[in-house]
């Protein structure tokens, strides 16, 4: 069964065999991919001579299963969310990455101590901390919404909303908007009542919400005036604010932050180059460089001190980071343990809710 599938896809793939000195990296597109190309890909090629091919996906975790099952893996490295990294690893779809091969911090601290807690797992190495926040158009609301609850308040802040089409982060935000303290969100979501409470909150804005799928969509929806406020990945909004001078503002209240990690799909065609790439890209300097291009926090402690100005040379990065103290007053660390188990169940429920 699997063999025949392998055969038929292999036949179609004959023409696409990669050249020897090449590594294909799949990421999320838009401003985020740009930051990776500048901070990782270009210096990597300059140092090793290995060409980096960049591919985009709405969520790079999803093509991996199809590729591995069909025996036709065309990418070497993928940038995925935490819960996906754990799930794919549990299902044997990823290569294990030994953390001891990762370069130590400049002061000699081994990588296992230098990375933030939980940033290294059996199959994945974290590069950044990103956050799902909500942002609004300052020309529409000069005073601006200030809390998560305002996002769900159609009377006080009329206009269309944008949200990611999926359960993750939306349910947490709905509960926080309903007054649930961040540290009780997941305990409540474990219960049927908690899930019902979150959906009841989402019901309030369902009729006025446009659902986005790719990370590049929300800044576009805001810029087009299709929505007046939308949830988004914080770095995308930052890029629109600073690089394109859009009148957007981020509300950090109720932000949901988590790691993005590098993984290597099982059977990646250029395994050695892929490992080299992961080692190179997650060293102290590269992770700090990455923050020069987009407002995502580096996954290593030693990189923090090296983060300074945006590439324009004037914008201080610290206040734009999800991990800076003033942005963390009411913030939630996304629980991978919760989402690894509940992802399929809650998304099923979310889809049924959406279609009704």
């Amino acid at each position, binding site marked *: 069964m699997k063999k025949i599938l392998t055969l038929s896809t292999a036949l179609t793939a004959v023409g696409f065999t990669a050249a020897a000195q090449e590594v294909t990296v799949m990421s999320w597109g838009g401003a985020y991919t740009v930051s990776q190309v500048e901070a990782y890909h270009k210096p990597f090629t300059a140092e090793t001579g290995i060409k980096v091919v960049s591919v985009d996906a709405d969520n790079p975790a999803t093509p991996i299963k199809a590729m591995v099952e069909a025996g036709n893996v065309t990418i070497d490295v993928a940038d995925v969310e935490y819960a996906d990294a754990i799930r794919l690893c*549990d299902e044997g779809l990823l290569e294990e990455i030994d953390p001891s091969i990762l370069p130590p911090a400049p002061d000699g601290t081994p990588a296992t101590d230098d990375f933030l807690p939980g940033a290294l797992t059996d199959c994945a190495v974290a590069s950044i901390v990103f956050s799902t926040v909500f942002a609004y158009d300052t020309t529409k609301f000069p005073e601006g919404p200030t809390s998560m609850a305002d996002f769900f308040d159609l009377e006080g802040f009329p206009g*269309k909303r944008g949200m990611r089409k999926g359960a993750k982060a939306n349910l947490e935000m709905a509960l926080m908007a309903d007054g649930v303290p961040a540290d009780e969100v997941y305990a409540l979501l474990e219960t049927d009542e908690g899930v019902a409470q979150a959906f009841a909150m989402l019901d309030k804005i*369902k009729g006025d919400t446009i659902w986005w799928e790719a990370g590049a969509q929300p800044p576009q929806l805001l810029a087009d005036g299709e929505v007046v406020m939308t949830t988004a990945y914080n770095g995308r909004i930052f890029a629109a604010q600073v690089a394109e001078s859009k009148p957007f503002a981020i509300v950090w209240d109720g932000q949901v932050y988590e790691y993005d990690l590098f993984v290597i799909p099982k059977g990646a065609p250029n395994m050695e180059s892929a490992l080299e790439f992961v080692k190179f890209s997650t060293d102290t300097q590269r992770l700090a460089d990455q923050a020069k291009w987009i407002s995502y926090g580096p996954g290593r402690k030693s990189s923090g001190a090296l983060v300074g100005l945006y590439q324009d040379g004037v914008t201080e990065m610290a206040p734009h980071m999800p991990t800076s103290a003033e942005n963390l007053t009411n913030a939630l660390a996304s629980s991978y343990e919760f989402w690894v*188990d509940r992802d399929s169940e809650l*998304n099923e429920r979310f889809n049924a809710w959406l*279609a009704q």
Partner: protein
Amino acid sequence: MRGGLTTADGKPLKQALAHAQARAKRKALLLVVPLLAFILITFVMPIGQLLFRSIHNDGFSANMPQISAWFDETKAGDAPDEAAYAALVADIAAAAEARTIGVVGTRVNYELSGTRSLFTSAGRNAEDLQPPYREAMLDLNEKWGDPQLWGVMRSVSSAYSANFYLAALDLARDENGEIVRAPEDRRIYGMLFMRTLWLSALITGLCLILAYPVAHLLAVLPLAKSNLLMILVLLPFWTSLLVRTTSWMVMLQEQGVINNTLVALGLIGNESRIQMMYNQAGTIIAMTHILLPFMILPLYSVMRPINPSYVRAARSLGATSWTAFRRVYLPQTLPGIGAGALLVFILSVGYYITPALVGGASGQLISNLIAYHMQDSLNWSLAAALAALLLAGVLILYWLYDRLIGIDNLKLG
């Protein structure tokens, strides 16, 4: 004359003919073999394999051999004994070692939500478990004693299962194995199948109403003019689907061309812009436009050869223009209507990209959910079951069409 016709050497004519033609037939067959092989390898086999997944999922049985064997030996309702727990622990430890424990947990989780973590967390601890295994497992998590969990494990210990079809029909099995409707907040597919069929029928109707006069105009105009107009039909037909859909997004947006024009003309206020996209209206408008050529072309090819003197004759015999159209012209165009309607309907039943981009939540079709299970949730068995049901539905409609109108009565060009 007995034995029928014979050739000069006494052989029956039929045999001799067949013999003489056999070579030519073999040659003809050889010519189509590459095409047949191509279709078989790139079309029939992959689709067949994927549809096979709707009844076959060995995620549990292939990775948990010992406990599956125990289920084979015992019968439904048997309480799990120490041997069962020992087999379970051994399998979980092996699966954790082989990194397939996630596959096992996912398979059980399809049937009983919230069980995936039971398996993955047991996998992390399996090495340290000591006999008696029943107590050890219950210490880990008391859900391991749940009869419903054991019932589900028994049902997935066979790779073959009809449960994905049940799920695709918004049905489920309760603790006793009885088939019941899924909880209300989980029902989705039945509604989506109905919506898909209804929207497809609506779009087919709209296409017919819009295409009929256009095709008629093309058919009666002098060739030079009608060819020019035909280009206008074909040009969008040749343009990429994605380009046409995104062009519609530019037109239909709240800040888009149509709304801006209406506001500039003062027909609507700036605050009351019409929502024409991210809902069913968007799906209907964009799909009707995109599928329009599939209706115009068959209609045109049927209308072109219709002799205009028939209608003139009817008029001269006293028929009103409506009667002449209804009794004389329309019946002659029926094969074109049938072909166009069937083509548009079947295409729209499987439409995916356009509703995904402009349909918002209320304009999603069943194919969007199939795509979701293929690409996001990775529950390929459920996607295959949904696709098989959709295929069966289309075949039934095709069969009905054949019974009611007759498939010979169809003219595609």
